[in-house]
């Protein structure tokens, strides 16, 4: 008897979820962040609707502080996928010149990402948004539903989430309410890399080890990606062989020292890894249950 592998099962489940959203939502969108999870989602979207192109646009909620390599990947993928790409930058954050150095990671993330995402969803009237979140990322995400309901104010109420049974997803909602959908909920970091390996999916080169100019801050290697990086008096970038396990705003994303120069090397490294992937994310350490708090405020 033929057996489906775990990657085939996960792939089928994600495709099922995406088709369900397209069948029932009025105006879906896929959030695209150029990371490895986004890369997998894009590939899955292509498979779900083939030979039709994915019947929704991509939305990037930009902070203007992503790595340059990420912007390059964004333009390349929009071109190759033949999908519409919407880039939203919170005009208020832009006007105030919000940045991680002066305003700190909390304010930076809230204005650019949380508020920016709300604005973009409201402006375009999207009622369902795909995101690349996974349950294995963080403790509070283990209980997150695949279909996560948000009020008209984009708030997440842990008590009002719907039970998800079998492959049945209740997508009914009132006017103004929206749904965040996580097709990769049941994937792990290792699954994502194995899938990237199996499918030969292009990813941002920052995931692979290379000599990069970095400074050590709060125990994390921060890359000096452009001239906007502010150095403390006496602080001097050093060249280190590093790579990134997750990608975000470059001043807030810590690199790890690594020799993994390709996907195979990353998988090998993951098998021997002793720290979880979100360790490099400075925003997770903002306080007890911080991710959960952000979610209630409308962070993805």
């Amino acid at each position, binding site marked *: *008897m*033929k*057996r*489906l*592998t*775990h990657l*085939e*099962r*996960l792939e*089928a489940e994600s*495709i*099922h979820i995406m*088709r*369900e959203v*397209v*069948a029932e939502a009025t105006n879906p969108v896929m959030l695209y962040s150029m990371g490895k999870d986004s890369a997998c989602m894009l590939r899955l979207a*292509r498979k*779900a*609707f*083939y*030979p*039709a*192109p994915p019947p929704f646009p991509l939305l990037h909620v930009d902070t203007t502080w992503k790595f340059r390599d990420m912007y390059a990947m964004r333009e390349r993928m929009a071109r190759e996928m033949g999908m519409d790409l919407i880039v939203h930058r919170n005009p208020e954050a832009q006007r105030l010149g919000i940045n991680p150095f002066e305003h700190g990671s909390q304010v930076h993330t809230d204005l650019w990402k949380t508020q920016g995402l709300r604005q973009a969803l409201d402006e375009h009237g999207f009622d369902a948004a795909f995101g690349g979140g996974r*349950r*294995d990322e963080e403790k*509070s*995400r*283990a*209980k997150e539903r695949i279909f996560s309901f948000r009020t008209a104010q984009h708030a997440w109420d*842990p008590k*009002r989430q*719907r*039970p*998800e*049974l*079998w*492959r*049945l997803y*209740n997508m*009914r*909602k009132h006017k103004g309410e929206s749904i965040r959908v996580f097709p990769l909920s*049941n994937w*792990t970091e*290792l699954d994502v890399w194995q899938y990237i390996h199996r499918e030969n999916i292009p990813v941002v080169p920052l995931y692979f080890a290379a000599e990069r100019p970095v400074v050590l801050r709060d125990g994390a290697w921060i890359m000096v990606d452009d001239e906007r990086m502010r150095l403390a008096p006496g602080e001097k970038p050093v060249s280190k062989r590093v790579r990134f396990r997750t990608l975000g705003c470059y001043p807030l994303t810590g690199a790890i*020292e*690594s*020799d993994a120069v390709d996907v*195979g*090397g990353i*998988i*090998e*490294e993951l*098998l021997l*890894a*002793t*720290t*979880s992937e979100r*360790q490099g994310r400075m925003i997770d350490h903002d306080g007890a*249950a911080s991710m*959960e708090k952000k979610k209630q405020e409308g962070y993805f």
Partner: protein
Amino acid sequence: MTAAKPLVNGLSAYLAAQEKKDLLRFLTCGSVDDGKSTLIGRLLYESKALFEDQLAALAADSRKVGTRGDDVDFALLLDGLSAEREQGITIDVAYRFFSTDRRQFIVADTPGHEQYTRNMVTGASTADLAIILVDARKGVLVQTRRHSYIVALLGIRHIVLAINKMDLVDYAESTYAAIAADYRKFAGTIGLADVTAIPIAAVRGDNVVAPSPRTPWYRGPTLIQHLESVEVDQERLQQQAFRLPVQWVNRPNSDFRGFAGTIASGTIRPGQRIRVLPSAREATVQRIVTADGDLDEAIAAQSVTLVLADEIDVSRGDIIASTAALPQVADQFQATLVWMSEQPMLRGRSYLMKIGARTATATVMPLKYKINVNTLEHVAASSLELNEIGVVDFEIDRPIAFDPYLENRDTGGFILIDRITNDTVGAGMLRFALRRSQNLHLQALDLDKTAHASIKGQKPVVLWFTGLSGSGKSAIANVVERKLFAEGRHTYLLDGDNVRHGLTKDLGFTDADRVENIRRVAEVARLMADAGLIVLTAFISPFRNERRMARSLLPEGEFVEVFIDTPLAIAEARDPKGLYRKARRGELANFTGIDSPYEPPEGAEIRIDTAATSAEAAADTIIAYLRAKGKLDA
């Protein structure tokens, strides 16, 4: 980080081995006291799914709020949400991931407390196997039976009875054997055939991964060995008849029309004959399309797109089935239902039913009985409360294709959705079609509704009056009927006086009875509209849901909701039958406006403000509406 050690067999061999791994989803049932969280923590730890930073955070948490002194409290790892952490219990379903060299695992961690049946049912719905934990000192408890019953109900075929805390009973074989025998006896009575009993001590890791030297008398598999080798449900489904619930019709251009969905059971190959249900049209499969190229064969759990050789009509919600073994088609069923809402399930109320990719309207017929999950006794009941389980008959607004749930979860499992809150309020498992509906063929009548109405020189319509007791519904409806009668119209007025003495005399005034009362009235009104009459109904009909149900029975435009809008203070001051006074004195329970709610209409066609309008003027307004809508023309 430290320098990477080279992998033993090299990376490509490792990746190839990974490719062959399959996936097992399982559920853990038990209470905090049984050591459930400790067991899951142990599995994650042993399979190296816990990282240093997580362990460090855990160790810090353990010292702060843990219950195990200086030892690492694995339970804390699993309590995600801060609100739950404060309560010290998990109150939701959490999913955990780990893998061994042979398999990948997804664990649904659900709490064991009685009030959270809902969560256990949710976790069990996608699981292939359940681990039932018992404390070796306590043996099989009421909750063990309850968990086992739910697991059996949800169709899980493989059970691990993990007899935990063996360290606290000196690893005594006799304790293990007695509990295992006790449990097997019970499991047999609820249809659980495959039970593997394993003696463990999750705290110390005995028989979790490696065989424990402290239980030399035990020769069975360790927990991990068993989890790595048990058959996944997908293998069973693959051997069943082909079913594909159509999720989405893929039509990028006029040259391509594909039917996309996830295969619920069986296998399919190009050239195979299929039938589309419920339309019963047949066709041949031409291609199985995927982005990676066409397939020669597709199997259960794969998401595919089928192209048919014949042009037939297929839409979302249909089931594509093998012609060799067809699903049943019916519009009345018996199902086991788990209620998940704080609002009780009421007989006669209609809900949205989602089954496969189909959403239909399902009306609850009489509840057969509910099941006491602790004793498994059948208890007579007229409603289901949160976390209760019952056996219910349903009527659906159209025939649908299905299989009994225990054969196929995807074509026999459904959820119920409240039409107003949109919440998921119930989870159901179809058992069988009611015989009366299987043989149901609507009689094509020679004389239809139009014929009945046109001979009377009018169009059928239902004027549905709603409002508080004493609002003036009956008074106004009477005037309307009298005026229409004077014009030579054919009318009939249904109100409490002519209905409560016969049609609904077995019903009282509880919420459940009110719902059933309105259901019957609505059905009678529909029949009368079929006969071409202008029907007037004058009932408080306090719930939006039931008025919506009544509306759904009739074609667009034939249901006219007339809201007799009288404030409670005025209605109570009028009190024509002295009922408000009685209710205020507590002599009348469940009186609308006093101790039972009235939900005012949101989209009534006609609203009458009785403070400003006489009954005569109100009747004229209503008749003018009918005339404007052409209801009084032939």
